[in-house]
């Protein structure tokens, strides 16, 4: 066993998880700060339906709308607990929030069977309702009395209080659980050799959902990655049962969240909850497998969707440190750089303010600071209105982000053409690393092409769809040839891909 390879494999996967999670962790801190300083304890309690029958469906709906992942949801769960919300509702929200967000649902609706995504959403509602009710029945009175919190005054002080609260969230125990979750990703990568899951989700493999359940509890998947994987599993005719298990457990649960539960609710309830969750998810998975099986698709005998959970390195690799750095560099997108900088600033500010004891003093000062002279035309907005604007703003900006994330067809075509030009000739020369970098990006643009066209209510017609499908198939064949380092095949498939792209471009121009 090569310990250096296991170590660097784990470091690479943990680094990738940190990069991918950075935007949603930031959103998690913002939502937690809004809950704490704008909604307040009582407002948060009411937002989640108080002690009525509405608490579980409301937790599901809010979870569907807020763009957080299973790491970003931890600080939000902390705030919910401090607000006196029941354990069942907190866990229901914690499970649903990472599963879907507006961008990922749109992606799923366009690229998978829309009925499947609707079925998955409804299954998640049923799942969290059962789990929430079961929890509250088995472990009643698991909620804490709401912690006292002075009302945040309006104006600039309210904005300052939210910023301070975000620093506080960043340097808090919740961040330790986030680190534990990331360590879980490293542990998984160290345990799973490269490519070991490639045949773990075949259509007729009855054990596929069980394998997926074993793996995905430790895994961390962003909502977007999960929906891309689900869509890919549909397109390749993989096991639908495994796909739902991956979505529910891989996206919803991680080691950090489980440790948070242990710390707050103890071992027995946590293990009981996890056991019930896995059992219900598996029962649902097997139930929906046949009815949702896509028709007319040749089932693939393997998938690369789960390679990201395994060790990226094989024993043939020699310079692990350099490869890790290259993989991490290639994984970063511009929005993630911005989020990582913001996270670093908040963490540093949180550490300085907490360790120096300035944070509580500044927060107290914000509450006692004398009011500035008010302009007579100023309107003092109640906290509930501000909170509503924040949430509606988040949803509206998510919709706006959909249009940015999925550009118009013409723009996507130009991007794809530039990448095709980058790849041109690389397959003849055997420039494997260059191709390994560009092929997934090109595949991503291919998916965005379909979603972007549908979003603008000008969906691709069947001629264009099939031209795109042919191109994507050729890219996948090229990807396999690159993995096998087979220069003849790469050359042949690369040429075919270039030809298929030319035809796609012509089809889109009409």
């Amino acid at each position: 066993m090569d310990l250096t390879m296991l170590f660097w494999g784990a470091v690479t996967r943990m680094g990738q998880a940190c990069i991918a999670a950075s935007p949603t962790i930031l959103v998690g801190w913002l939502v937690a700060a809004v809950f704490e300083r704008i909604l307040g304890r009582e407002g948060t309690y009411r937002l989640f339906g108080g002690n009525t029958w509405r608490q579980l469906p409301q937790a599901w709906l809010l979870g569907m709308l807020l763009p957080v992942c299973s790491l970003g949801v931890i600080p939000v769960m902390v705030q919910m607990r401090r607000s006196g919300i029941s354990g069942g509702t907190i866990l229901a929200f914690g499970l649903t929030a990472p599963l879907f967000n507006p961008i990922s649902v749109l992606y799923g609706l366009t690229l998978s069977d829309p009925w499947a995504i609707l079925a998955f959403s409804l299954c998640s509602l049923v799942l969290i309702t059962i789990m929430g009710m079961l929890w509250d029945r088995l472990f009643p009175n698991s909620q804490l009395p709401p912690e006292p919190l002075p009302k945040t005054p309006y104006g600039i002080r309210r904005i300052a209080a939210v910023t301070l609260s975000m620093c506080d969230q960043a340097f808090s125990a919740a961040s330790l659980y986030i680190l534990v979750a990331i360590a879980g990703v490293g542990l998984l990568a160290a345990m799973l050799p490269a490519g070991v899951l490639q045949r773990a989700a075949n259509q007729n493999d009855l054990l596929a959902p069980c394998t997926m359940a074993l793996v995905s509890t430790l895994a961390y998947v962003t909502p977007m990655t999960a929906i891309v994987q689900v869509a890919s599993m549909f397109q390749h005719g993989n096991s639908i049962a495994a796909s739902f298990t991956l979505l529910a457990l891989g996206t919803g649960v991680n080691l950090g969240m489980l440790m948070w539960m242990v710390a707050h609710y103890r071992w027995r309830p946590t293990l009981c909850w996890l056991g019930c969750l896995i059992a219900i998810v598996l029962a649902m998975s097997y139930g929906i497998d046949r009815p949702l099986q896509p028709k007319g698709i040749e089932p693939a005998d393997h998938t690369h969707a789960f390679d990201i959970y395994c060790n990226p390195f094989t024993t043939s690799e020699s310079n692990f440190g350099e490869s890790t750095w290259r993989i991490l560099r290639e994984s970063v997108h511009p929005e993630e750089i911005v989020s990582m900088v913001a996270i670093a600033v908040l963490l540093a500010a949180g550490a300085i303010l907490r360790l120096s004891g300035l944070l509580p003093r500044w927060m107290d000062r914000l509450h006692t600071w004398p009011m500035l002279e008010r302009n007579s035309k100023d309107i003092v907005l109640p906290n509930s209105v501000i909170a509503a604007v924040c949430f509606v703003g988040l949803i509206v900006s998510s919709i706006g982000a959909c249009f940015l994330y999925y550009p118009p067809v013409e723009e996507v075509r130009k991007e794809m053409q530039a990448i095709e030009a980058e790849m041109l000739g690389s397959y003849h020369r055997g420039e494997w690393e260059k191709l390994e970098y560009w092929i997934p990006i090109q595949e991503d643009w291919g998916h965005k092409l379909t979603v972007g066209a549908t979003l603008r209510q000008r969906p691709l017609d069947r001629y264009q769809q099939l031209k795109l499908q042919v191109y994507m198939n050729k890219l996948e064949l090229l990807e396999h040839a690159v993995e096998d380092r087979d220069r003849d095949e790469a050359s042949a498939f690369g040429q075919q891909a270039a030809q298929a792209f030319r035809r796609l471009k012509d089809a889109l121009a009409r």
Partner: protein
Amino acid sequence: MEEHFPKHWPFTIERASQRLSAIARDPQAPSPVEGLSPREEFHDLMKWLPLLAADSDLDRKAFEQIDRGALAWQSALQVTPADDAVFREHLIHPDTIAFLQSLDAICLAERARLDQLQQP
């Protein structure tokens, strides 16, 4: 390269058309692929036709003609039990014959166009 495709994958629309015509002419002749009946091969080829047409330089009109015919065949067999007797009945159906003839004509025209392009 072959490991990525089913054994009876025809690679081009032209070869698919030739195999379809051959099976239609003699549905009793065994398939070149071991363990595969002519009915299964015919059905798979019909299913793959739209993708093969998209993987060629055929224009939109020809593509749509092939796509319509292939989809019609598939939907017809979805509501009919697909045993050998029904299959042979479908083969001699005027719509199937007309479709295979038009597919053949499209492929011949495309071959002629490509040959002309290759001439100095």
